[in-house]
């Protein structure tokens, strides 16, 4: 598998908190990489460095290098908005805008200059189809996005992220607020999506990581302890701490 995201010697500080310590990691293209580890170990932080969402937190300092497709995304030439268009994100809590289902999906494309009604209609349909939501909502696209269930809302958020045509999809515990059936739907969805997108997901559910991901990275106290093919990491971890964690001895 080809590497898309290359992180080398990355350090991140929130004012005085040293949240990421010398992280180096290669994330393969068109595959699912899962981040696991106990709470507060820096998984979300690392995820947010990839679309530079940490930039908005005052007092954040970052050292080291993070390249996507060979481009250092923290260099001066990089336009943050363009970067975020290419690196979509889905959050822990579904956060649809208080607008209609249609307007939620069309928000991104409109932002980036698409005004043509027909083109927008097409994007809305294809994004909703890609997020396996089309059949459930196609008859009431004008309804408020807040009127659908939590699981549907989360798929709507995935569709919204896909609508701006990203290469990478970051998912931060995207199923942790959902019921088992919705979770399963989204897990199935990620299997579809990985043919077209590079997915990086944070999860607290080790079964989920084992079920859906191709590679897994285990974090502890801001460091990457181990990064390997998922199968290997779960069946034959090379670090004692990884083994302790996946066997439930701590965390």
């Amino acid at each position, binding site marked *: 598998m080809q590497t898309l995201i290359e992180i080398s010697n990355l350090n991140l500080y929130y004012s005085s908190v040293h949240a990421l310590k010398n992280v180096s990691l290669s994330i393969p293209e068109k595959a699912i990489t899962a981040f696991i580890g106990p709470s507060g170990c820096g998984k979300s932080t690392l995820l947010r460095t990839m*679309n530079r*969402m940490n930039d*908005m937190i*005052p007092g954040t300092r970052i050292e080291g290098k993070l390249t996507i497709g060979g481009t250092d995304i923290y260099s001066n030439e990089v336009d943050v*908005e*363009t*970067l*975020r*268009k290419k690196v*979509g*994100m889905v*959050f822990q*809590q579904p*956060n*649809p*805008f*208080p*607008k209609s289902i249609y307007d939620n999906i069309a*928000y*991104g494309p409109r*932002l*980036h200059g698409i005004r043509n009604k027909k083109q927008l209609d097409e994007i809305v349909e294809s994004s909703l189809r890609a997020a396996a939501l089309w059949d459930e909502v196609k008859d009431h696209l004008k309804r*408020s996005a*807040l009127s659908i269930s939590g699981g549907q809302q989360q798929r709507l*958020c995935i569709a*919204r*992220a896909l609508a*701006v045509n990203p290469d990478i999809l970051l998912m931060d515990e995207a199923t942790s607020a959902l019921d088992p059936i919705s979770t399963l739907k989204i897990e199935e969805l990620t299997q579809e999506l990985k043919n077209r997108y590079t997915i990086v997901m944070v999860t607290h559910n080790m079964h989920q990581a084992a079920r859906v991901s191709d590679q897994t990275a285990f974090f502890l106290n801001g460091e990457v302890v181990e990064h390997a093919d998922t199968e290997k990491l779960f069946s034959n971890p090379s670090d004692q701490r990884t083994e302790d964690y996946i066997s439930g001895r701590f965390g």
Partner: protein
Amino acid sequence: MSMPTLPASKAKRGRTDAGSTYSFKNEKKSLADTVMPLLLFLCAAVSILTTIGIVVTLLTETYHFFREIPIFEFLTGRKWSPLIPPVSYGILPLLSGTLLITVIACIVAIPIGLASAIYLSEYAPSSVRRVVKPILEVLAGVPTIVYGYFALTLVTPLLREIFPQMGVFNALSAGIVVGIMIIPMVCSLSEDAMSAVPRSLRDGAYALGATRLEVALRIVVPAAFSGIVASAVLAFSRAIGETMIVTVAAGSTPKLTANPLESIQTMTAYIVQVSLGDTPRGSLEYGSIFAVGMTLFVITFLLNILAQYVARRFREEY
């Protein structure tokens, strides 16, 4: 209805009330617990009674006035001349004066107030916000007479540099200063509404590649719209009711005009003028201030209803 089953269930538990080991009697209920509600009720009653008193006085005096002057004539008359004969009570000049001031004030206050609210809520670092918010609150507490002199002695002379034909008393200066006076209110209320928009909505938009401005205008403002409208309508009613600034700076010539450079009179300023004079109780002129007051009351009341309707109609829930 459940009576018949009661003894049985008691019997089953094998325990009667008398023999209960549990006591639910309140042991610390004091006199204060009995007296306080009454006291609180009385306090609430004072304000309610006052309101009723105001409305009743307003209604009776207005009723007497409208027995002399037909209400239709009052509402549609284009001349307000209570002193100089031929005496005429047509409220339109006072209404237009009030409207002129209010419109100018809103043109000043709503854009500036909203822009500063957007700045404070979306751009300003929290250190700036912590300093500016209390200052706004202080500004909102400056006595309006101070603003009145500010209009008369600073703004009017400045404006006369630009419009030499303008008189000392004019609607423009008063309107601008009323606007300045209500900026803090618009800003503070809109900022509250915008700060209440959840962080997660902003993050959702940023993650799609929205800029700060796009997030502010296309996510935060729409989501806070009902609060913003409420603040705008409150600003509008505040401008309509403003008294000191217009009394000091706008003049006392009731005139049906849309020209802001002229001297005008507002409804509130007219009420002040008559109240300060030695108008005998029961005279027509005396009654007229109640009719004008009633008109003000009805307008503000309708505006409040409008505000509630608009707020509900445009609510974006989150």
